Every structure is written in C-alpha cells, then in structure tokens.
C-alpha cells in the first residue's frame, strides 16, 4: 500500500470504529433507512394508481429513491467528525504529525461511502422482502450502489468543507437539516418527473440528488438506458471533483487560520 492509501485507510478505520462502538448510532444507521422505505412505501402506495405512472409497484420505484436519500442524509453529517476532532485535541495531534494531509478528507469520505454501501444493501434486502423487483439484475443493483456512493462522497466532502469553515455543530446541523429534505423532494426520488409541477422539474435538472436518483433507478429497475446512466454518473463525478477541491481548500484555510 502506498503511504497515502495507508494513512487514509487508518483514518477510515478510526471513524468506522467510532461508529461501531456506539450501539445507538449503529441502530439508527441501520434502522432509519428501513423505516423510510416502509413508511413512505405505505404512505404513498396509491401513487402507483395515478395515470401516467410507470407501471410497476410504488415500492419498486421508491427503493432507489430511499437509497439515494439515505446516502445524502448520512453523508451530510460527515463534517461532525471533523468538528469533534477540532474541539478535542485530535485534529491538532494529526496536524503536528507527518500524516498525509489529504488522508483526513479522503479517509472520512471513504468511511461515508462504506456506510452507504451497508445501508444500501439493507434497503435493497428490505425492498426485496416487501415486493420490489430489480429486473436489471445484480449488475444494475451494483451500479445503483455505486451511484449512491458517488453521491455520498460528494455530500461528505461538502460537509467536511462546511465543517472546516463554520467549525460549529449548530451551524452544520442547521445547514444539513435545511438542505437534505428539499433536495430530496426536488428530485424524482419519490415521484416520477412527469407527475410533478413544471417548476419542480426544471429545478430538478440541476439537482445532483436527482441525477443520482435517475441514474440509480434507471440502472436498477430500468428500462436500462446505459448511456443516460453514464452521462448522469459523469455529472456526479464532476461534482465530486469540485467537492474534493473545496474540501481541500477549506482544509488549507483551516490550517492557515490556526
């Protein structure tokens, strides 16, 4: 392993450990996505009867949407770990060590992707149990999970950047809670694009959560249009590069401000 990869891996390990040692958090991480899937699935079940809906069951339509929503809402909190480390002496200890600086960002973003993989698998299993089908098979589901990870990485990086700038839990909480739900509802995660008002559809074109929802759903439940999926993944990769750039810049600015 190269030095950069080794350092990043140890940071990922540390954040994973922090999660695993707090059973309440583990429970929330695992149970919350199930609740969303089952609750929204029951609540909006009759959506499938609206004329113009794609034809399958709502739970099938919803499963990729809940995966995307779970990915961004978990990743949005990623910056909390940085704030925690800044307030304890851990960040100082890291910065006075020869650790590869970007390992802190890379390691914590990788951690959020790992969490997303686990959560996505749970949602898929629950989805299968309550009647969802994934006609495009394992490959399609794998692409769905990849898309969720990309989206999670974008939000984790942006959350880190914000944490490094604001350095206050309250501000990060306010930002995350006020961004995640609107972005989810301004996407096709819960409702097919042809059934929502034009202005929502217009905004959703520029909404990364929508890119993720469209790509993930197309890949998993079809009809498979791989060039469309590829194009959406391309947009997410571009966003990830921007987010990584911002997180790195924010990290440098934080170091300079000490």
């Amino acid at each position, binding site marked *: 392993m190269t030095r950069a990869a*080794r350092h990043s891996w140890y940071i990922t390990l540390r954040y994973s*450990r922090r999660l695993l040692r707090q059973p309440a958090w583990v429970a929330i991480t695992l149970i919350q996505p199930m609740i969303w899937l089952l609750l929204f699935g029951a609540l909006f079940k009759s959506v499938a009867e609206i004329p113009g809906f794609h034809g399958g069951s709502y739970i099938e339509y919803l499963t990729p949407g809940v995966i995307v929503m779970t990915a961004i809402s978990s990743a949005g909190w990623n910056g909390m770990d940085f704030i925690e480390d800044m307030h304890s002496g851990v960040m100082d200890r890291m910065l006075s060590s020869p650790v590869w600086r970007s390992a802190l960002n890379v390691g914590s973003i990788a951690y959020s992707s790992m969490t997303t993989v686990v959560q996505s698998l749970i949602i898929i299993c629950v989805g299968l149990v309550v009647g969802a089908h994934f006609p495009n098979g394992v490959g399609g589901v794998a692409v769905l999970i990849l898309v969720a990870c990309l989206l999670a990485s974008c939000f984790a990086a942006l959350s880190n950047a914000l944490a490094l700038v604001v350095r206050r839990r309250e501000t990060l909480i306010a930002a995350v809670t006020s961004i995640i739900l609107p972005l989810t509802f301004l996407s096709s995660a819960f409702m097919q694009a042809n059934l929502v008002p034009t202005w929502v559809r217009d905004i959703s074109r520029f909404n990364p959560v929508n890119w993720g929802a469209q790509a993930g759903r197309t890949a998993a439940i079809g009809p498979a249009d791989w060039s469309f999926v590829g194009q959406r993944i391309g947009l997410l990769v571009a966003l990830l590069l921007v987010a990584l750039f911002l997180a790195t810049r924010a990290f440098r600015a934080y170091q300079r401000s*000490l």
Partner: protein
Amino acid sequence: MAEAIRASALFKRYPPEVQALNGLDLSVDEGTIFALLGPNGAGKSTTVRILTTLTRPDSGEARVAGHDVLARPDLVRRAIGVVGQRHGFDPESTGRENLVLQGAIYDYPRRTLGGRVDELLERFGLTAAADRPAKGYSGGMQRRLDIAMGLLHRPAALFLDEPTTGLDPEARVDMWHEIERLASEEKMTILLTTHYLEEADELAAKVAIVDRGRIVASGTPEELKSELEGDTIHFELAQAADVAVRETLARVSGLTEVTSDGRMVRARARNGATAMPAALSALETAGHQVTSVTMARPSLDEVYLRHAGRSFREAEEAA
C-alpha cells in the same frame, strides 16, 4: 552543548486585537528540560503551536531539531513528539488502537510496531487497560496515554503543553517523576509549559518567564531566585493591613518592597534574620498586632512579580 530548539523574534497576532506573541526569543539545549512559565494568556501555548508547526508566526523564525519550522515543517514533524493541552487520543478507541494509529501515521515499521506499542503500554502502566476504550481511563491514565503517543516514534524533542493541568496532586507528582525519567533515561529534549511555579522549579534545568508575549526573564531556577538577593518576610496581621502598616515597615532599615494583600504583608530584606526583630518591634510600637511571621528564600513567584510587574495571581485574573 548543542541547541535543540531556538526561536527568535516571534510575533503573532490573532485578529482583531490579541497580540499573543510580542517578540519572543528562546533557546533550549539538547537533552534538557526547559519550562515556559507564565499565567494563562501569556503566550506559552502559541509558542508551542509555532514550534510544533501548527501555527505560523506573523514574523520571526524558529528551528527545532536542526530544521526550520517554516521552511521544512515536514522534517520538524518527524523529529518531535507533541502532547497538547487537550487530549489527542480518540476516546472511542482503546489505548492500544490509539497507539497503533499513531504508529501508522508516523510510518513506524509495521513489523516492530506491535512490540513498541506493548513496550509503551507496559512502561506507562497501561497494559491492563490496553484493550479498553480510552474514554474510560482516569485523568492520570489519559495523560499517560497522551504522552505514550507522543513518544511512540522516538522523537528527539518532546513538547508538553501544560502536562499536569487538571490532574489531582498525586497524579501530578507521578507525572513529574515520569517527565524526569524521560529526560534522564532517554536524553530527550523536553519543552514544557506550565502555570505552576513549583512545577517549573521542580522539573526544569532552565526556566523562561513569559509575560504578555515576551520572555521577561530566563535562567536556571536558582539563578532566577538568586537575582533576588536576601529573603522575603511574610507577616500575618490580626487586621487587614492599611497604608500605615506599609509605611511603618518601609521605615524599618533593611526592608524594601513592602506589599500587602488583606491581612498578609510581604517585604524583602537583604538580611532577614536582622530585619525581622526590628520590623516586629516597629509594628508593635505602632499598635499593629502580628499573629504570625515567616521568612523564606525567594520563590519563582517573587521572580515573576519582579519581572512581570504584577503577581502571578493578578496576571491569571487579568487573563
């Protein structure tokens, strides 16, 4: 003796108006314990943060273990161990996991890391607790874990920022023994900051007194104390001391620098043994009842008072 740490003319301002360092210079010899002594807010921690590459000064330069902290922070970081004022371990990880992570980020050879971790756990009395999360450790154990982490990669110089703050008196004395042992057995250069006068007196070969971002005096504790010739006499009166008491004492030949705080009056004497009887009789004649009197060789407290122009307690309160 070779110089392990050197700082010259360090200035640092935290906007809008905190002038943390105001032209600080210091020099630490290799293999010695050096104490930066001063009240909270004097600039001790800022100095440590600059020397450990966490903070960049506005101007000035510093070298640690032969490397320039501004030009080659990477080399400085490999050469130093840092134990900050706040805990640097992950509370959810065990002592052993924390040490292994520390080894990983210092690129300690993986084959020998396990042995090194065991050795440090043993040495700092953490073997029994090695596999428990560090958040459950006592204050003294947490401090020892911090120090073990700082030492893991065998640094040439160790920085300890207020190593005993928050420890109970017993744990503090244990920590003193630990620090002394490090300096004598490992020939390590140690720079520590403290606002405990007795800690600097006890541990350091050389003490620098920091006040308002500058070193106001430095030397061995003995040198600093001997600058103040003679003795200090403390009088405790039955009633609070007023101007009349101070004037009475100031007229006694051989007594200088009379100060008071409530019922306590302090004066300096070139020769305490002869000045004390004269002082007591002068106070009695003037009708001031003395309940006790003690005489002491000057302490660092007095050195601080002399150089900083205010007592340590006043400086702490102002901070």
